[in-house]
């Protein structure tokens, strides 16, 4: 598949830059503060170049060491990969900038944070560029382990319990996934996504493999009712880690599911699609209600992630119609929107937590003095989470509603619209603190302008990138990644 596409060396740099950074910061932790901005710059730069190539020239690929699949390893970037890389680069750069300030005084934690985070970034980029299911597994496993270690960095009892649970879930998920991979390999003798897509046919073995892989990925994407591990892990982690986990890590397993669904899995399984959609709808309702019930700010934000992930899964039933591409695009837009907005929210919540010394919502009244920009960031990010125009979240919601109505499945509009209302309720539960006269939080810890502006900048990006929706859609469709493989999408 990749042999026809132009060869792009940027695919290597996209993986190599953060990897080099990870090794460097591990070996010379004292130089991390100097090296990290350069690493981030290099990674973002390579991603920008690659995205530009995909947008202008179409699908890019690169055979590692000159060996093409099935013998060698192929890196492959189409519009979907480009969108994921772009999302990761935007959030990654912001979090990196934030963390240089956040860990300024905690040199011991920082010592582990930088190599782990850069490792995680490497894994993400590798995942989005991999084109065979075993490489995907390797990247995926690396991603999971790095993420777990990052959660444990906080060192508190909560964080360690959360991390432990996350570890068990993650291992179980990966293992199930790996079983599926093994089944596919023993049946068809190849791991390349393109080749598998051409070979897979409905059979007991493919069904079993599909089932195993989907189950593993759902667990790691925290789809309701498999979400139980997410809130404690995301809420207890250090702030930059919370942002990374919620914004990027869960999206990676969704990406994998989406990719395999579109390219590998034997037939579009209507029943399974509807089941996933139903779980997604339940996730929206349940996650939002739980968010509304929380008394701690970071937990509220974490449950909001559970709810927002539900939207991603509505695409599975919606795509069982002539407007499949619209439904999938909506999910990818949700990924972008949620990544930016949720990262902004977690960073803002982290600022408020550090400033006030606690994150008990009931006592946050009058807190804005001192961290007003963080509150503003929370509010602006809220616009995107609720899905109001002109944010990317609105574009996503619009596309999804369009897919539901044009595809003749109007009942899915209920969770889509209802989720927005519930989101309003929990976002404004926090926003109303700003205006309340009740509590009296006086800040003890100063928050540097960098931490505030990073959160605010991310939230503005979530709001403003909505105006770039036509360009992003064009980028996403480069190489038609969203067409099902039976339809004949192979370039």
């Amino acid at each position, binding site marked *: 598949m990749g042999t026809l596409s132009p060869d792009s060396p940027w695919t290597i740099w996209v993986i190599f830059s953060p990897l080099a950074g990870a090794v460097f910061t591990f070996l010379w932790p004292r130089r991390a503060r100097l090296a990290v901005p350069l690493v981030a710059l290099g990674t973002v730069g390579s991603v920008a170049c690659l995205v530009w190539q995909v947008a202008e020239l179409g699908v890019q690929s690169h055979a590692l060491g000159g060996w093409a699949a099935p013998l060698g390893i192929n890196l492959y970037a189409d519009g979907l990969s480009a969108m994921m890389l772009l999302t990761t680069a935007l959030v990654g750069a912001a979090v990196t900038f934030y963390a240089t300030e956040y860990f300024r005084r905690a040199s011991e934690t920082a010592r582990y944070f930088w190599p782990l985070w850069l490792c995680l970034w490497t894994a993400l980029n590798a995942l989005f560029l991999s084109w065979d299911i075993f490489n995907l597994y390797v990247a995926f496993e690396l991603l999971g382990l790095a993420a777990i270690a990052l959660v444990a960095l906080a060192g508190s009892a909560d964080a360690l319990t959360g991390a432990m649970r996350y570890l068990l879930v993650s291992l179980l998920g990966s293992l199930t996934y790996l079983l599926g991979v093994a089944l596919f390999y023993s049946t068809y003798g190849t791991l390349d996504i393109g080749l598998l897509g051409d070979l897979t046919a409905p059979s007991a073995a493919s069904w079993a493999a599909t089932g195993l892989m989907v189950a593993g990925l759902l667990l790691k994407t925290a789809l309701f009712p498999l979400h139980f591990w997410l809130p404690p892990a995301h809420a207890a982690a250090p702030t930059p880690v919370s942002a990374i986990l919620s914004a990027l890590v869960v999206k990676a397993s969704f990406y994998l599911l989406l990719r395999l669904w579109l390219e590998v899995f034997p037939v579009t399984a209507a029943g399974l699609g509807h089941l996933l959609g139903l779980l997604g709808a339940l996730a929206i309702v349940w996650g939002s209600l739980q968010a509304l019930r929380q008394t701690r700010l970071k937990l509220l934000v974490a449950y909001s992630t559970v709810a927002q992930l539900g939207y991603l899964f509505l695409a599975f039933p919606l795509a069982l119609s002539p407007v499949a591409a619209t439904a999938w695009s909506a999910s990818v837009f949700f990924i972008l929107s949620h990544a930016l907005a949720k990262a902004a929210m977690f960073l803002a919540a982290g600022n408020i937590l550090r400033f006030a010394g606690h994150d008990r919502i009931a006592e946050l009244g009058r807190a804005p003095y001192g961290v007003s920009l963080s509150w*503003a960031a929370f509010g602006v990010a809220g*616009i995107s989470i*609720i899905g*109001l*125009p*002109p944010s990317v979240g609105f*574009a996503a*919601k*619009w*596309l999804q*509603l*369009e897919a539901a*109505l*044009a595809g003749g499945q109007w009942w899915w*509009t209920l969770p889509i*619209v209802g989720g*927005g*209302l519930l989101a*309003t309720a929990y976002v*404004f539960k926090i*926003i*109303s603190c700003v*205006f*309340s*006269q*009740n509590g009296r939080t006086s800040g003890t810890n100063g928050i540097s302008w960098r931490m505030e502006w990073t959160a605010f900048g991310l939230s503005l990006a979530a709001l403003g990138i*909505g*105006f770039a*929706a*036509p360009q992003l*859609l064009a980028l996403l469709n480069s190489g038609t990644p969203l067409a099902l493989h039976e339809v004949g999408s192979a370039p």
Partner: protein
Amino acid sequence: MSWNASLPLLVLASSLVPGLIIFCLPEEKQRTRTTLNLVGVLLKLALVTFMVWGVQQGEHYETRIPLLPGLDFVLRADALSMFFALLSAVLWLATTIYAIGYLEDSPHRSRFFGFFSLCVTATLGVALAGDMITFLLFYEMLTLATYPLVVHRGTEAALRAGNVYLAYTVTGGALLLAGMVWLHTLSGPLEFTANGFLAGLARDHAAALVAIFVLLIAGLGVKAALVPFHGWLPQAMVAPAPVSALLHAVAVVKAGAFGIIRVIHDVYGIELAAELALTGPLAGLAALTIIYGSLQALLQNDLKRRLAFSTVSQVSYVALGIAIAGPVATIGGIVHLVHQGLMKITLFFCAGNLAETLGIHKVTEMRGVGRRMPWTMAAFTLGAFGMIGVPPMAGFFSKWFLGSGGLDMGQPWVVAVLIVSSLLNAAYFLPVLRAVWFEDPPEAWPAERSFGRSETSLMLLLPTLSTAFSALAVGLLASMPLSPLQWASLVASLEYRP
């Protein structure tokens, strides 16, 4: 971008930019904040006036940015949008001056005026929106920008009212969104077009068009406070007086009413709406709201609540005028956007003056207040007469056109509704006026503040008097060229062009 394409954006920027700067100002920089406010408001008024003049000369102002496949962000100036834009710009000038006086020495002024400016930006955006998605964008922005104003005081009651307000308006926005997406899947682009753009779909999708209409009107009806979606409006009374004035006269309820005009005229087209039998039920709902609002107003003792229910009633005149679906009634409906705005803003300013100067909040406390605050109460009287529809006040012309328009279309029941409503208006305003002017004042007012020789602060009094005077003037000068009535006739004639 050419001058004509950037002008609509400049109109929005003239309040958005000062608003964003005001957010960053420290609380004590009062002079800078006031300057920014006034410069923004005056600049906006100048730009809008210039555009009104340009539109009259046949100039075409349009900004267009692609937003989603097949959908653009469009700002455009047409006769109707300029009508609403000019109203907003003028009333904003009055309200800004009033708010500066009203909020003197109170906390959180930077926050207040920041959101205040976002609010005017959203209202102007609603006015200038050239397609439905742009309309929705500013409609939702209006919700978000007014919430902080409603809960500004930060008390328990204010926060509760804010929650009610949000629950209603956000649900309304969601219904609007659902209707729009559905319409988009049927019709493609959603640009406002004179006489509508859906005529071609009527044969195959009549049922869907009816359902979409219901969604859209319900979504807009929340802000326009149509019964049964009006519950938020009386609650929102906890807001400071300038905010109430704003919510009731220009920003929120008018955005809803204006949206209803847009949907019927420029989305469905009056003929299609009548053909699908959509206007009849809407007229019925509007009539019901008019009567119900007046009845409720009669029962309120809290002055601002009484005025709030009066708004519920009066704003539905706009919907009624449109839904009668005849040219004359349409003029009455559209011109009532301006007339009700001027009268209601006057009344709310007066209520604010009473509360600020004498601590009066209840109707029963208003006995004899005419002797203590004659100017304010003169303005109040003009506003109340206008609401009742006494000639030559502005309200009379609205009712006249509505009534004769109803008769033209063979719907005499409209006249009956107007008569009942006017009687009810008289019933809840005249006893107040009698008490104000003819009863003896009490020994002491609930909480009196002295303002030297003037009856109250001039910053409060002057805007009140000027809006009251305007409400009189637009009635007296109704037949002059460029009066609101003439402009409304122009708008209506565009829709009913043979």
